């Protein structure tokens, strides 16, 4: 499956780009699976996801938990806990 991934704040800075399109194998089934897959893509990804509990995710612009399936997702976002307001 092909999916658009976007990054924000220090996740974006550590990976070094605002987003990318990736091709995923069917065994990458959940958000947590995707984090594990991304961590293996290079040291910049390893740096961004070194402490996965500090990274939040959204699928198609709604917050999701790590165990959420990604099937059918168009856009998956990774970012630190929010600090607006």
């Amino acid at each position: 499956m092909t999916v658009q991934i976007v990054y924000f704040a220090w996740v974006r800075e550590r990976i070094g780009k605002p987003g990318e399109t990736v091709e995923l194998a069917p065994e990458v089934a959940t958000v947590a699976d995707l984090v594990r897959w991304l961590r293996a893509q290079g040291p910049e990804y390893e740096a961004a996801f070194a402490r996965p509990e500090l990274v939040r995710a959204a699928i198609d612009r709604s917050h999701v938990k790590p165990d959420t399936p990604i099937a059918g997702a168009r856009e998956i976002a990774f970012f630190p806990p929010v600090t607006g307001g």
Partner: protein
Amino acid sequence: MKVRVQTADFDVGEEVRRLTLGQHDIGAVVTFTGTVRGEAKGRPIVSMTLEHYPGMTEAELERIVADAEARWPLSATLVVHRYGELKPGDNIVLVVAASRHRHAAFEAAAFLMDFLKSRATFWKKETTADGEGHWVDAREADEAALARWAPRPAASD
């Protein structure tokens, strides 16, 4: 429009005037304005840059407004949040809740801010005088603040 995400500043009086214009069912207007503090952890900051997730931020703020409107009888609601580079003393966020009576307006404004702080997709980066930027850490207290808004038992009233 009940939700705006913008770089431009806002004028609290003007926003309230436009929001409540011609509505005579309003007896209470509560506003909250968040502004940029000039120091962080005891060190002066020269600027604060806010990044956000275009599209999701607006969607999330609209969900929060809809939740507040489902919970209190609100006559008017507004959330304005700025992004980009801000200076100490600048406005960051405005929340307005208007209702017939003050309790609903006070509570709805607090609810909107509590959920905005832990759900709306904004990130703050503070720049100190040495030019270094630091991403602001999320506060656990912000997440804990949501507990007071747990759904009440249906039989309570």
